[in-house]
């Protein structure tokens, strides 16, 4: 006879507030084979686990059902607890009576009835549980970081420092990311390049770090500890090992019509270009869509002027395959395209610019060498309007529902840049709320108002009218006074919402990492596992997980690195024991299962079988490689003779649940 113990958790009032937990325990106590049932305030706590351990000893339990929160939360906890008293961890089942019951229902009687049903289903399943033993797989001691901005660089440096090999894949010709474009950083107003470029150099020179710039991840297969990744190194048309980085080619290139991505279109670049002076690697790349040589066959000036003979028009993309134990996503962000905001003058006047464009305009290394000018006229502005929340907190089709988090601080920073250098320029910031949580942040914003004399107006801009002479008229509201304002600034800065980099979704599909409706990567747990993706072995760093500023990004990058190091430090990983298994006596060797297996985990072998009739027979049957099988169960349904079953989710177990629920 089986001895099942049932433990009903109150989860404080989270469950007990809606479910009569004592009634659940009482109801299941009546079921045959249930040797013990009780309820307790916090089953996951040390005391709660002690109750389980004691009950196992007192009642010689061999199976455990915990009615509590989602198994995604505490299944591992209760399995460990069972193991500590000699019960195989896979003899534990969880009935999810919190997320699926108490949290979605209000009526106590209804919730209690549902909780009892769920408990009964878990009991029905656990009767058919069998002890399972995890296998082992090795761990490749190398990590891949996708994205070479501050998040990726920091993660890579931390992993490399711990002694593991790391590769950074960056799609742009240089590492550095968005931070390289910034002038200064809040709340200290220290120069962005001064703190970033040394890190870029460190990454480039670190013996454990390999940089793949101008490269993209093409294909990913495998699983935690054993990912196989194909990287496409796009043809630079320049031999990196021969180039000295002198930049002569970029100066002489006659094609000058392509807007510089790095300078946010405020300046044009050549077809052969190095994004910025401190680029790493400092090797130019030919933009083949813009290059005259590639378009018309005529030109070739860069090749003629190159003193190192590094130009190679015939270079091809190169595919590199490498094995990794862990993958970190650090794909960063971009600004929301503002095409739909013509009412704010975007696309209508050159003097309506985005925040990143302002960073370039104030940056000493930018297109104007740090002189703040109106792009239309090249003249210094006399007054500037900054508009917050453009596309943020916007539930319509033209915006993003979330708060972009960094804008309130950078708006204050931008206002300070301007007032610091040009005390005569008037700066007005329109805001909905000023959100400045963070160390020294609110003080920073107040300094903008109190010391720098920036006007902050609670209200928004409704329309920016552009006149024939380029004059801007801003219609705005001042909600505190109820006034309707008309301003005549020379420059309008739109603090556009941030959004994940456009290839985030493609990578999510490749890695089967979860992604939310806004294309931010989803973390395994919003509070307790913030730098891990639900997909084992995939970690998250920086803006690709959600809006965050540089200090937060750097700390998250470190956290992701710590998780990677923890993984790479392991010699072996316990594999999921819930793998497919073949009941050889009914397998006909038809090979249907092998065709549907996405992992190539099923092969065939001749074996001596004891048939259902009790005779011995030599037969070809399916053999599951448990190291490769990931336990999806596709084969179990494909098998025409139901010989394939999935451990932990056997046909019997699932049917028992169905029967218990219906």
């Amino acid at each position, binding site marked *: 006879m089986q001895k099942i113990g049932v433990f009903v958790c109150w989860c404080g009032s989270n469950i007990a507030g809606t479910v009569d937990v004592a009634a659940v325990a009482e109801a299941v106590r009546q079921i045959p084979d249930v040797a013990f049932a009780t309820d307790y305030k916090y089953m996951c706590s040390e005391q709660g686990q002690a109750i389980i351990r004691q009950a196992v000893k007192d009642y010689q339990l061999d199976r455990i059902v915990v009615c509590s929160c989602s198994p995604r939360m505490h299944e591992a906890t209760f399995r460990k607890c069972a193991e500590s008293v000699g019960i195989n961890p896979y003899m534990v089942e969880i009935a999810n009576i919190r997320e699926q019951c108490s949290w979605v229902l209000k009526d106590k009687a209804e919730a209690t009835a549902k909780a009892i049903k769920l408990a009964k289903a878990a009991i029905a399943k656990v009767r058919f549980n069998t002890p399972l033993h995890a296998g082992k797989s090795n761990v490749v001691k190398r990590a891949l970081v996708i994205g070479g901005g501050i998040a990726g660089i920091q993660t890579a440096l931390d992993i490399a420092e711990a002694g593991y090999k790391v590769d950074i894949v960056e799609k742009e010709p240089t590492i550095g990311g968005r931070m390289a474009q910034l002038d200064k950083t809040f709340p200290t107003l220290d120069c962005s390049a001064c703190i970033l470029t040394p890190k870029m150099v460190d990454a480039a020179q670190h013996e454990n770090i390999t940089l793949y710039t101008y490269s993209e991840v093409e294909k990913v297969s495998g699983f935690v500890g054993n990912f196989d990744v194909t990287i496409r190194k796009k043809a630079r048309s320049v031999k990196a090992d021969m180039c000295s980085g002198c930049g002569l080619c970029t100066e002489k290139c006659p094609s000058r019509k392509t807007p510089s991505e790095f300078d946010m279109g405020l300046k044009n670049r050549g077809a052969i270009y190095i994004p910025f002076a401190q680029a790493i690697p400092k090797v130019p790349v030919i933009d083949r869509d813009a290059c005259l040589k590639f378009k018309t066959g005529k030109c070739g000036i860069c090749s003629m002027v190159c003193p190192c003979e590094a130009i190679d028009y015939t270079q091809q993309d190169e595919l590199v395959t490498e094995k990794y134990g862990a993958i970190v996503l650090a794909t960063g962000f971009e600004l929301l395209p503002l095409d739909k905001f013509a009412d704010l003058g975007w696309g209508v006047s050159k003097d309506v610019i985005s925040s990143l464009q302002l960073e370039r305009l104030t940056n000493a290394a930018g297109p104007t060498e740090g002189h703040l000018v109106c792009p239309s006229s090249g003249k210094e502005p006399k007054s500037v309007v900054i508009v917050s929340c453009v596309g943020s907190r916007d539930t319509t089709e033209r915006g993003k529902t979330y708060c972009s988090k960094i804008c309130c601080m950078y708006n204050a920073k931008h206002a300070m840049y301007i007032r610091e250098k040009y005390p005569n320029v008037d700066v007005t910031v329109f805001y*909905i709320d000023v959100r400045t949580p963070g160390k020294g942040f609110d003080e920073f914003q107040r300094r903008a108002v109190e010391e720098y004399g920036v006007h902050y107006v609670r209200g928004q801009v*409704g329309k920016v009218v552009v006149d024939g002479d380029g004059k801007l008229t801003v*219609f705005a*509201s001042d*909600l505190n006074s109820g006034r*309707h*304002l008309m301003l005549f600034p020379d420059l309008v800065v739109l603090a556009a919402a941030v959004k994940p980099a456009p290839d985030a979704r493609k990578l999510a599909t490749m890695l089967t990492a979860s992604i939310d409706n806004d294309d931010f990567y989803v973390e395994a747990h919003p509070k307790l596992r913030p730098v891990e993706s639900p997909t084992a072995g995939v970690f998250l760093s920086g803006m690709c997980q959600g809006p965050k500023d540089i200090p937060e990004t750097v700390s998250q990058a470190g956290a992701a690195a710590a998780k990677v190091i923890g993984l790479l430090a392991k010699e072996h990983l316990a594999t999921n024991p819930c793998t497919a298994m073949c009941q050889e006596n009914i397998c006909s060797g038809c090979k249907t299962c092998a065709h549907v297996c996405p992992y190539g985990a099923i092969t065939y072998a001749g074996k001596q079988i004891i048939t259902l009739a009790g005779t011995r027979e030599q037969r070809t049957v399916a053999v599951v490689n448990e190291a490769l099988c990931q336990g999806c169960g596709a084969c179990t349904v494909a098998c025409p003779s139901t010989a394939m079953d999935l451990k932990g989710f056997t046909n019997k177990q699932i049917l028992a649940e169905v029967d218990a629920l219906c």
Partner: protein
Amino acid sequence: MELTDKELAEQILHLAGTDVKRCIQCGRCSAACPVGDKMDFVPSRMVWELVNGHGASLIKADAPWRCLSCFACEQRCPRGVSPAAVMEAVRLTEIRKQSANKLAAESLENYPADMPQQALVAAFRKYSK
């Protein structure tokens, strides 16, 4: 029977048919309103009064009679709220009352002959029963 402030607000809310709770008081509607400077209650204030159940102050407001129903407020609202519908609801609450017309039929003669009837129909629809 006189309606309380709250009941009045509920009635207006029902007529407006827009979810004013979504409003974050950003003020874009007020900024976008072409006649906002002539309103005693700017559009965002109208919405705010309704969110907080101040029906009586909405009825007293002059703003709905200035509103053009040009939908700039609704179009530019980042939250999908329609202040224009709130204006309309207040107008309707008034003009549906007995003899509360804001525009007398007799005044018709005073308008220029070339004024399109579209203007007159619209104005009478907005200002009278």
